[in-house]
């Protein structure tokens, strides 16, 4: 209450100061009334007239109109706050008469008011507020606000904002009634590299826009020039999102490459192991939020091992109880693991509900780095890209350099011979399967940062990830990587051309045809184990 009082005193003081020092014609009671009541056209006219000479009182009035706290009593416009009323123009406190009526603003009026509020932001002290105002005004650029922009331009000191203002000014002038002004504006805009400017100019070229042939010619050259500058950003954007999808795909498929490629187990529950990893991330996030709110940004560091071990434990349990009995019978394994996946999905529904659960990005993973005007690389996707290569490197080291890896390879190549040499094959099977499951958990942890976490998380990836393994060729990791990245990029390239669904269908058709030609995948295994 006290704070509120202080606030209003402050506002009054500031407005009084600007009254004395600033503008020649400040907001008068009469203007305030013309803005608040009457026909919409008149109100808008009054508003834009007042905008040529903005002051604090006007800002206060616009705010009040926007949050419906302005009332009209007779000739006076009153702003009501917590039951206290002040005069719109002078800021003097007054009592609220019982006859006061609400000011009603329809959508059109509201838009005008929003625009006016944004325009006022151009004169704010804060740099970010001015920047926001420019961004907001882009959507409602019309010639009426031109004098305001000119004044802001004269006052602006920051070079970057000045350039933005120039562009905004040009955008307003493109629709001017004066041909020369239009031509100048197009010339000014042609140097931009913003996608929004391109669509603005493109819009002028459409029917109902520009009619003058000279201006039209200038417009189309400008559009071409901007497009030339944008095209690389777009291309790189497609390639990046392709790589990002590809990195997710190969992270998902990496676990499968171990369980299927090395062990010959068709694990249809792989997607559900991912889901377990994602839910583990969710639980770690909740634990951090509750017990270590200060370290919340680093929950993901703890979630990575947790999701690995959660999924690996479930995987080891599955191997011991079900999959162990089905080695060498891939079709039966397929059905049994499908059954497991159904049970896991239903279990998650029982415990966490059928709805998606919210997993928040830590603050250092939200946002992105702006590489070009139309190319922003989100941090979480970059992180996943690196993470998947990190996992790949670790798995490769594990398989090719450690004793466990040696045993896994040995069992894969010749089970009975490995057993004869003293390898505990049953134990190795469990470890290898748990490793594959754990990698699935890591994939789930990564996915929780870019997508929804829910019981159906894994279902959407199972067909894709099998395609990656099949395409890459069974039994080694390199094929999985190439196939995953290749499919991701191919998918995104096609998406730009045909739309998401058709792109997916084309990719699937491509894989089916490819498998016809090379049943062993891109990298066929050579040697003794190939025909096993």
């Amino acid at each position, binding site marked *: 209450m006290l704070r509120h009082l202080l606030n209003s005193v402050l506002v009054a003081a500031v407005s009084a100061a600007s009254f004395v020092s600033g503008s020649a014609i400040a907001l008068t009671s009469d203007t305030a009334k013309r803005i608040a009541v009457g026909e919409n056209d008149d109100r808008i006219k009054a508003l834009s007239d007042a905008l040529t000479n903005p002051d604090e009182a006007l800002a206060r009035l616009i705010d009040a109109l926007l949050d419906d706290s302005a009332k009209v009593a007779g000739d006076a416009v009153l702003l009501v706050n917590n039951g206290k009323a002040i005069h719109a123009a002078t800021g003097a406190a007054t009592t609220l008469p019982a006859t006061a009526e609400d000011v009603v603003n329809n959508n059109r009026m509201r838009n005008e008011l929003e625009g006016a509020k944004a325009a006022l932001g151009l004169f704010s002290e804060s740099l970010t507020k001015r920047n926001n105002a420019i961004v907001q005004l882009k959507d409602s650029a019309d010639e009426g606000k031109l004098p305001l922009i000119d004044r802001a331009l004269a006052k602006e000191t920051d070079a970057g904002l000045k350039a933005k203002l120039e562009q905004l000014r040009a955008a307003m002038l493109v629709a001017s009634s004066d041909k020369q002004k239009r031509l100048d504006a197009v010339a000014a805009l042609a140097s931009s590299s913003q996608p929004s400017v391109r669509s603005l100019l493109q819009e002028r070229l459409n029917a109902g826009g520009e009619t003058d042939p000279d201006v039209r010619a200038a417009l189309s050259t400008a559009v071409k020039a901007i497009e030339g500058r944008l095209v690389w950003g777009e291309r790189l954007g497609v390639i990046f999102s392709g790589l990002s999808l590809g990195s997710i795909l190969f992270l998902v498929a990496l676990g499968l490459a171990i369980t299927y490629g090395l062990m010959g187990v068709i694990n249809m529950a792989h997607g559900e192991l991912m889901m377990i990893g994602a839910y583990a991330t969710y639980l770690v996030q909740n634990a951090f939020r509750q017990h270590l709110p200060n370290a919340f940004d680093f929950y993901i560091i703890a979630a990575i091992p947790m999701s690995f071990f959660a999924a690996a434990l479930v995987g080891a349990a599955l191997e011991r109880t*079900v999959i162990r009995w089905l080695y060498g019978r891939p079709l039966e394994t397929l*059905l*049994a693991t499908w*059954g497991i996946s159904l049970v896991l999905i*239903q279990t998650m529904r029982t415990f966490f509900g059928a709805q998606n659960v919210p997993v928040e990005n830590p603050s250092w993973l939200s946002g992105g780095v702006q590489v070009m005007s139309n190319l922003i690389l989100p941090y979480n996707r970059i992180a996943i890209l690196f993470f998947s290569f990190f996992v790949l490197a670790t798995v490769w080291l594990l398989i090719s350099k450690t004793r466990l890896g040696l045993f896994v390879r040995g069992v894969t190549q010749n089970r009975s011979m490995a057993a004869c040499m003293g390898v505990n094959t049953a134990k190795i099977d469990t470890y290898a399967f748990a490793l594959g499951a754990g990698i699935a958990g890591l994939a789930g942890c990564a996915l929780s940062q870019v997508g929804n976490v829910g019981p159906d998380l894994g279902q959407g990836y199972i067909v894709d990830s099998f395609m990656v393994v099949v395409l890459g060729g069974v039994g080694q990791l390199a094929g999985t990587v190439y196939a995953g990245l290749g499919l991701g990029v191919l998918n995104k390239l096609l998406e730009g051309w045909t739309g998401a669904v058709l792109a997916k269908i084309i990719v*699937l058709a491509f*894989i*089916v045809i490819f498998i016809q030609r090379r*049943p062993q995948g891109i990298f066929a295994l050579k040697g003794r184990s190939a025909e096993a």
Partner: protein
Amino acid sequence: MNTSIMSSTVNQSTATLLGTRARMALAAVIAILVLVIPIFNLVVPADSVFHLSDYAVSLLGKIMCYAICALAMDLIWGYTGILSLGHGLFFALGGYAMGMYLMRQIGREGVYKSDLPDFMVFLDWKEVPWHWLGSQSFVVQMFLVVAVPGVLAFVFGYFAFRSRIKGVYFSIITQALTYASMLLFFRNETGFGGNNGFTDFKRLLGIPTATSSMRVTLCVLTGLILVVFYVMSKAIIASKYGRVLQAIRDAESRVLFTGYNTLWYKLSIWTLSAMMCGVAGALYVPQVGIINPGEMSPAASIEIAIWTAVGGRATLIGPIVGAFFVNGAKSWFTVTFPEYWLYFLGAMFIAVTLFLPQGIVGLVRKLSAKYANPTKRGAP
């Protein structure tokens, strides 16, 4: 494939296709279908204990459609050793072919009172697209019910079998096929009603579909077609052609070395199996009253495999028993304990593969052998 399945089927081929007991059983089934169901549903009054409700009739009809699918799956999986995870696609294609005809039968009674199906009006199409040209004619659509799944299966199978894709690879590719088709049918532009598919059917051959007599007719028809397919499968399995199929299942390389071109054997039974599924889909749609791309989801196809596995692969009665058992359980569970249905289904997948490789029929045979021969312990 494991040897126990092999031994269970070899001694089935007798000189005559069906023994006396089998003929009597078959006659009894036909009698139940043609006499008992119509009488108990239409003649017996609704408050009688013996009254068969409309719900039961349509459930029975639906499950018999599933049984046809399971039988088709058994021919290709149980007898030829090729697991298809895409049979739901053929089922849905047959259903869509029937659905197109039913949509045109609605006539001008749709929401928009147009000659075109409602969803086309909604998409602002002015005339039917090319693949709907024959949809006014019952004969054309019934031809498509078998032709579309048949041709698709033939073309797909030709390329797959020619490059010797088998085992799990084949299963995964069929799954990708049905998944891709589901995505395709989800699109409105494909011209099959998108997400919603076809529904709100009014009549079939000019006769309203929402009557008891229509429901009973369709149910009995489905049952009779199931019987025909059963006898046909029996004949196929007992023939020399059927023996070659089983040989392919057990040792394909040896069959190849003996001089058989397995491509044509596999391709023909694969195509036949797809066509049977198409017929099942066509019978399913008017009884259930809806067809949508959900039928093409990988889960729907894999369920067909579990009906077959639960009942007992490589026996012809097994898939039918399995379809009745699993779907009966499903309709009971989803009413009584909806949240436990997936647990039950999942447990069934696991239990059947681990403990009952020959399904219910195998279990019954084992138990009856034990009963008949109590001195011998366990199964042979």
